[in-house]
């Protein structure tokens, strides 16, 4: 049954991704500008446009083009970037790596911190430390990422302390992480955006769990408080927290755009903005699909974790 459940979720995910691919493809069709003309520039003679259109299957009806494109996706062929004159995969490869490093670092910091702060807050419910956490997380959760980023830049790079670089310098050809100091502020910005949500969700979940009958029962059995929290309460928070972590990770995939723009970070987000500006349709499509895929995969992972964490579903499999 558990396998069936997961299989079903997987199937739904694939369907959603397919639907997203249709929408993304259709949306990019609407972008003003003619790809062949864009590629050829002034050399756009009718014959050359026709030839290129044929090569790029632009003479085919959109439906056929969609399936050709979709087929390409499955084989890892994201098409050709019109502005970079290279396969999208080559163009995005390094940038995707940079973005992933940034996101992974942010997740690595925000998830444990968020969970720890949430638990701490729930355990100190109603006390001053809890209300302090509540205020701080509420405030941070409200702030747009660029506001947090500029705040950090002002604090650590330009005005108060001048200890960290405000922008990514990325000497050409070098991976960004070779200068770790330039990762600090972008990572911190993302972490500060994400962690409050995780903390708040963790707190809310823990409080709900701590209010439940079985926690009261465990305490009335004389179970030590540590064990109450870690053995009785925490397992029940896994599912909901996995959900919110998934949402936040998915957000990272999209939210990284603004942060990359702010810190001039050579990642996928920058590539997306450039691609939209240059009408580089293949890149826009690829980035959209990557972000959507990340969203779907992390949500799927959260669902699976939720299913695995639920003994009712888990035992039903046995």
């Amino acid at each position, binding site marked *: 049954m558990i396998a069936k459940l997961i299989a079903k979720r997987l199937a739904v995910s694939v369907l959603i991704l397919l639907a997203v691919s249709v929408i993304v493809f259709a949306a990019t069709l609407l972008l003003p500008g003619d790809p062949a003309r864009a590629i050829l520039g002034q050399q756009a003679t009718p014959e050359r446009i026709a030839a290129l259109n044929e090569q790029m299957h632009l003479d085919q009806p959109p439906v056929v083009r969609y399936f050709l494109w979709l087929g390409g996706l499955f084989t890892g062929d994201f098409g050709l970037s019109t502005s970079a004159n290279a396969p999208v995969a080559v163009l995005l490869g390094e940038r995707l790596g940079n973005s992933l490093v940034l996101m992974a670092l942010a997740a690595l910091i925000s998830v444990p911190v968020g969970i720890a702060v949430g638990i701490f807050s729930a355990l100190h419910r109603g006390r001053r430390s809890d209300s302090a956490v509540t205020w701080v997380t509420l405030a941070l959760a409200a702030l747009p990422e660029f506001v947090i980023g500029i705040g950090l830049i002002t604090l650590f790079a330009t005005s108060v302390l001048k200890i960290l670089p405000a922008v990514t310098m990325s000497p050409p050809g070098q991976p960004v992480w070779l200068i770790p100091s330039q990762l600090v502020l972008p990572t911190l910005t993302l972490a500060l955006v994400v962690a409050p949500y995780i903390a708040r969700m963790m707190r809310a979940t823990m409080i709900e769990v701590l209010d439940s*009958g079985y926690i009261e029962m465990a*305490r009335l059995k*004389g179970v030590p408080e540590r064990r109450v929290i870690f053995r009785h309460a925490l397992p029940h928070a896994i599912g909901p927290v996995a959900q919110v972590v998934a949402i936040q990770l998915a957000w990272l995939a999209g939210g990284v755009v603004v942060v990359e723009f702010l810190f001039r970070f050579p990642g996928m987000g920058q590539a997306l903005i450039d691609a939209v500006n240059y009408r580089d349709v293949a890149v826009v499509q690829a980035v959209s699909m990557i972000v959507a895929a990340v969203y779907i995969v992390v949500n799927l992972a959260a669902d699976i974790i939720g299913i695995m964490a639920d*003994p*009712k579903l888990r035992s039903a499999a046995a």
Partner: protein
Amino acid sequence: MTTAPPAAPGAAPAPGAAQPAPAGPADGADVVLRIDDLRIATTGDAEILHGISLSLRRGQLLGLVGESGSGKTTAGLACLGHFRAGLKHTGGSVTIWPRGGERIVVQELGEDALRQLRGARVAYIPQDPALSLNPAMRVGEQIREVLDVHRWGDSDAAREARVAEVLADVGLPSDRDYRRRWPHQLSGGQQQRIGIAMAFAMFPDVLILDEPTTGLDVSTQAHVLDTIRDMTRRNDVAGLYITHDLAVVAELADRVAVMLRGMLVEEGPVERVLHHPEHDYTKRLLEAVPDLAGRKAIGGDPYRDSPARIADDATAPPLLAARNIRLSYGEAQILDGIDLTLEPGECTMLLGESGSGKTTLSRCVAGLIDDYTGTVALESAQLAPSTRKRTAEQRSAIQYVFQSPFSSLNPRRTIGESLTVPLETSQRVPKARRRRVVEEALDAVRLGRSFFDRRPGDLSGGERQRAAIARALVNSPRVLVCDEVTSALDVSVQASIIGLLRRLREENGLAMLFVTHNITLARHIADNLAILNRGRIVDYGPVDDVFAHPTHAYTKALLADIPTL
């Protein structure tokens, strides 16, 4: 006993000990726990326990009875030194004399000592086992945990053996497979027995049982009660049995204490209190408890049979007739060929446990569920399954009253607005007169017109249920379907609602389908009794006939298991 009881810090002269002890082991060597003038208040300083004093004796069960909000659970939890969020201890003490140990004053214990007390010396059996067992832990482990945290025995094997033993004691399989089950894989009765096993695992001195059988079916309840009685005797513990059900107390307890709004109004041996109550409240309470024999006159006048019994004129179609009603969801056959008739002015009790299909059936009749097969006919007219497809007249003729008065009225709208809704859709009365009709209905349910502009939040449960009944009355129905209308209410409120329904029947000649799980109400309201079991009617006939000659094993067991005063 292998564990020493926790060293009581209160052994040294302490505030609790300094007071003149009103009673102690000296008075009766068998007193195990004594509550002295216990006071508990909310953190907002509203006192909710006004000085309770009680003693528990070894091998005896004390029934602590009271209606909801009387503070009985709060008092019970105080025996474990536990106060729920928003409550605090403001005075008095709980003292425990464990076997072979020093006296313990619960209020003087530190966090650690308290923890060692709980589950070991004082055990707690909660009301709802489904909520109190950790759904993410195997049941064996949950019992084992008690032994683990209190360091029982000297080896894992010994503890495992004890788990098996105590499981066997409560009548559950003790094999490894069973211990490895998850709570959701157990029935409600089994879950509660796990709770009992957990409580007895450490051979406690005191047992606090907080409505442990509420929510269980009559027969399951009987089994669990047997187990509790047996275990209490066998282990020679002192028990505090918290309940609202006087009949259970009569069956189980040695002594009974009655609570009212945070005060103890009466305490004494069961026999004396239940049969010769001294306090007015106890008397009223006892009067409100329905009895199977129907000798009492709960909610006012004794029940008189309605003029119309099961029709002997077979030619005239019955007022309401359900024929061969079947309904299944997937594999589950919820209703399996139900035939039921109702004559004008007649009341039929549809009795069944949770899951028997009784609510489903009553909703089929009311048109709230429309995917059944079979027919529902009002007089000669066959009714459309869905209420929306029925005519306004048909809709008006059958009115349905919901179980929970807390849910059946829109909290955002005034009583008057909610009660006008049926009139709006039936168009029976012109707009200008609607308020008057609603006010009359409010009068009829003895609420009064002043309730027209109030909201459900301002009303008590009983008042809300009256308002809900009034809503059913505004269209002058011919059949009233009452779905467990009293089960969410305290026994005294239940009595008044029963009284009201009875009067309404007499005044308006209403026919009634009274759906309930409580067989003791039968003789107080119904002419006929239909016993529903797993989607089938297993016994059907005049109440007296069914009581006197139950045909189905289920009915027989039901009648045998029902606790009585």
